[in-house]
């Protein structure tokens, strides 16, 4: 079952979007792809710098939050940077 695949298939498998950095795919559990009533704002399309800055401020508590403070504290500066770049482009 641990079958390796021939080159042609490998090309196919890697053709999709760049692999998400750790944690990045969890954001879409709450952040919708497009603006939705009552939901937090979509992340795709926001500048990566703004997303990273907001995450830093949630982490330090500088920016008030219901839940993002508790989430942001789980990520390092490097992780936040990588996530911000990926979610800004996703979809």
């Amino acid at each position: 079952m641990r079958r390796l695949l021939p080159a042609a298939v490998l090309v196919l498998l890697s053709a999709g979007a760049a692999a998400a950095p750790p944690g990045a795919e969890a954001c879409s559990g709450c952040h919708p792809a497009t603006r939705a009533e009552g939901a937090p704002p979509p992340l795709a399309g926001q500048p990566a710098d703004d997303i990273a800055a907001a995450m830093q401020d949630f982490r330090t508590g500088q920016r008030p939050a219901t839940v993002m403070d508790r989430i942001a504290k789980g990520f390092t500066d490097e992780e936040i940077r990588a996530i911000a770049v990926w979610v800004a482009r996703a979809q």
Partner: protein
Amino acid sequence: MPSRRAVLALLGAVAIPLPAFAQAKPRVVVVGGGFGGATCARALHRAGIAVTLVEPNPAYTACPFSNAVVAGLRELDGQVFGYDGLKREDVIVVQDRAVGVETGAVVLAGGGRLPFDRLVLAPGIDVVFGALPGYDEPVAERMPHAWKAGPQTVLLRDKLRAMPDGGMVVMSVPANPYRCPPGPYERASLIAHYLKTHKPRCKLLVLDAKDSFSKQKLFQQAWAELYPGLLEWVPLSAGGKVTGVEGDALVTDFQRVTADVANVIPPQRAGAIAAAAGAADRSGWCPIDPVTFESRQRPGVHVIGDAAIAGAMPKSAFAANGQAKVCAAAVVALLRGAAPDPPKLINTCYSLVAPDYGISIAGVYRAAEGRLVDVEGAGGTSPPDAARSVRAQEAAYAEAWFRTITGAVFG
């Protein structure tokens, strides 16, 4: 009739791996079309894998927010999601039940076999009838568990509606682990809300096989504020553990409580296909590798969602959805012969204690020493001293979460 020679040629074509066959897309079968399985199937499909999703039901009935259905605050219709969104993207959905797993193929109840290079099991839970003496399937028609959303949810709602004012509602809550740790307490809250609004002379007794539970401080604070004298919680240490069911009564070591409406949340285990595949251990749940979600017992078979033993992660729809994405990425890497990246996962469970009063618990997780552990310093519950406006905001975010996640998974 084709000639004997032509048949032999055909057989030859199957037996000898011609380049065209060798380049076929890798095949992954996903069993179970819930939050875990439907998410995983879609992610694998988008990564270029030939995926088949196996699910016996024509539509999925979601448990999150089903407590609001029990309390008459929502209709069951709002919980039902079809598979058209997946089919529109050309994910193959086979309406059947998986009954066994052979080497490299899933066996279906309908008699078919689905070959795979890797298999993902996301069967959710089975209620273990008989684990609580006297509680079997016919009794569940009188004393609904409502722990799988659908007819059981409606049954419990209707029994509450039919009960006269002054009646006694009794809930039985199991020991860990079970699906949705805060779920029983959200249900108790919303049933109390229903009683307070419609039948204020009723009482709700919550008999618990545990002494502590998820978001306990927040729940108890809200109960004291919103439902004083109506809702009583009896922990294990005060004799709360239900040891059996007799007639209309729930039995503990200390008393026999006759209920006008009983809601028994029974012990649970991974859906039966997990054990049939050899992926479940003696606990009834499935040990997994925390990076790939591959079974510790059955190589090539991955287990996600409620069925898996996911360390510090609770059994939630949020967790099943996140695990499905991590598992899909790992399966793609493994099929490519690459090393999967160590994941970071998030969970958030919202609970309603009243329609406009929401609380949450969050966690961030990483793989360490063979299991999923909490990232220290992150996560936790909503603050105990928040204003009612914050609780209302969290209730609104809870509903938005449900719309967002069901849209992403089934839309």
